[in-house]
């Protein structure tokens, strides 16, 4: 599956995606500002690839995911999925386009309607997009339940009768119902127990292999992202700080924020944990309604420079396949070319097939 990706065009192409939530204040409810949840994000996802998206809470990860599926009306930019610009489709065309892109949600409890049975939930997309008869639908529902490893006997149970992991399987089955090509997984494991997280991640990987799916995998569990993603985008306050192939990133993060983020992950090995050199960031993330003038990270960056406080760095390729938005690397950015990017991608993909 990976070899095929080489020559193909990206399945998902995001350019300058901006998602502002307007703030209205004053007597006349005038539009006085925006929550800049996503502020100019661009990336590609190749068919069959998994792009990890990590970052702190509130940095805009979910918003990116939702905007991609046009669950929000985006402020600016384009989202081309499989050749169609999702951002500008009319309601009916959008409805028709929905089957190819689906979503798995963070909270398996909240994302399932408590008053619908499992069969209803998984069957709902079929009701929306097919005119199959009940038998055929039921057959498909059983098929999906088999695929995600749910016992067929559960078809008439309600979500609350399942464990967290099973609920997440239901959510995945629902997303798979219409044979999508692209799935946004919005923290699908965050609410699950460690022992169950692994089950779900394995399931997602198996399905990707079997069905040739493409994932945008949103998470703040960096070790899990390392496991599943091919490339990883690190977001901070509505912008991408670094977008690198997985191994390169974990071996040597370039952006100071990526570095801090990685170092903050607790190490499940007492001998190493005690000796590890942690970068503890001070303070909180600034409000996306009022981001800093320069680099978004300048308020907490241990390596902050004067330039950072006044000029926003662009996301540029500093090494083959590695893009960073940081002034520390701005001098190098001139030399990096577009060919380097494709090279890097090849490398990373080869790296994955280890």
């Amino acid at each position, binding site marked *: 599956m990976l070899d095929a990706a080489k020559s193909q065009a990206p399945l998902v192409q995001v350019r300058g995606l901006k998602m502002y939530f307007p703030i209205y204040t004053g*007597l006349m409810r005038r539009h006085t500002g925006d929550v800049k949840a996503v502020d100019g994000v661009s990336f590609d996802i190749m068919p069959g690839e998994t792009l990890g998206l990590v970052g702190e809470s509130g940095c805009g990860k979910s918003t990116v995911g939702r905007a991609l599926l046009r669950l929000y009306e985006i402020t600016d930019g384009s989202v081309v999925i499989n050749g169609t610009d999702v951002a500008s489709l009319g309601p009916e065309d959008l409805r028709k386009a929905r089957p190819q892109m689906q979503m798995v949600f963070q909270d398996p409890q909240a994302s399932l309607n408590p008053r619908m049975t499992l069969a209803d939930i998984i069957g709902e997309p079929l009701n929306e997009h097919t005119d199959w008869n009940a038998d055929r639908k039921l057959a498909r529902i059983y098929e999906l339940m088999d695929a995600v490893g749910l016992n067929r006997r559960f078809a008439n149970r309600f979500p609350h009768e399942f464990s967290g992991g099973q609920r997440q399987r239901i959510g995945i089955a629902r997303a798979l119902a219409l044979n999508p090509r692209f799935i946004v997984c919005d923290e699908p494991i965050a609410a699950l127990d460690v022992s169950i997280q692994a089950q779900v991640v394995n399931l997602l990987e198996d399905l990707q292999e079997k069905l040739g799916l493409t994932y945008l995998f949103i998470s703040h569990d960096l070790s899990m992202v390392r496991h599943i993603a091919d490339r990883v985008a690190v977001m901070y306050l509505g912008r991408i700080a670094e977008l690198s192939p997985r191994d390169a990133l974990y071996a040597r993060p370039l952006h100071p924020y990526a570095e801090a983020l990685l170092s903050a992950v607790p190490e499940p090995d007492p001998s190493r944990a005690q000796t590890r050199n942690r970068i503890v960031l001070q303070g909180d993330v600034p409000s996306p309604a009022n981001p800093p003038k320069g680099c978004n990270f300048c308020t907490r960056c241990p390596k902050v420079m004067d330039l950072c406080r006044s000029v926003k760095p662009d996301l540029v390729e500093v090494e083959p396949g590695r893009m960073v938005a940081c002034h520390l690397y701005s001098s190098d950015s001139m030399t990096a070319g577009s060919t380097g990017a494709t090279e890097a991608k090849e490398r990373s993909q080869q790296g994955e097939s280890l």
Partner: protein
Amino acid sequence: MLTYTIRRLLLAIPTLLFISLIIFLLVDFAPGSPMSQIPLTIPTEVRLKMIEALGANEPVYVRYLLWLKQFFWVEPLVMLDGIFGTNWSEGMQRIVSWQSRSPVMDIIWQRLPQTLTVVGSAYVVGVLIALPIGIYSAYRQYSWFDQVGTFFAMIGFSVPTFFTGVVLILVFSVNLGWFPSIYDTSLRVRDWDTFLLQVKQMAMPVAVLALYNAAQISRYMRSSMLENLGQDYVRTARAKGMPERVVVLKHVLRNSLIPVVTVIALGIPSIFGGAIITEQVFKVNGLGALLINAIQGSDLPMVQTLTFIFAVLIVLFNLIADILYGLLDPRIRYD
């Protein structure tokens, strides 16, 4: 908060104008005539003359515009005159009741005290009874106290006040002779004795109305308490070693009161609406009696003015409830 308030107030103006128009048309359109209470011995021609003298023959839009002017311009001026002793409103025509030929506003002012004392204190008493009952019912959910409370609340809903009122009169006025069955509106509280008299004559109507109010509010209180008792912060408070009294009456209550207070605020306009049946049973002659009298007598200016004031109060207290919510709950911010 301030801009929010002002904004809502400004928005209320077109709403109220629209409501006033609807009320005006509706009341006007309803059948009935101001002459219905006059004995049949008075001949038709005289009746027609009387109607003419009332100005009831004018086309409806003329009366509406006149009424608007009177309500929003003349009456406020009169009120200012009353306060500052000026005479800006001199010679202006006020809204006049067809029944008594006196300015509607004067009558309303006259009625307000007894309505506020009786219906108002019934509301207060109702709330005061309801809160502890609701709190305790929730704290001991499914206990016998809770069950009995539920039972009585339901009875409170389902038994009409014309029934409870008469029963109280029979028991406490006729048989025991404890309380008067008729409310004396001209009683002035001057000393201890008159105060006692006042309390006595208020006892029964207040009890009837309070029962009804308490039944309703205690339900709200109970469910709100139940919701909050399950919250995490309650556990935190207990973990701090706070006594149950503090946990329930400070931490939980304060949170539970937020929605209840707004419910209570939303109920306040109904005080000004008076209690039609109870007022009639005990002859309190408050605003409720005024309204029902005016409706029965087709005293349109009175009905229109009263209902419009009522509408203003409803819109106002909706706003107050929202603002209260914002004030009581630090999480809510209006801007």
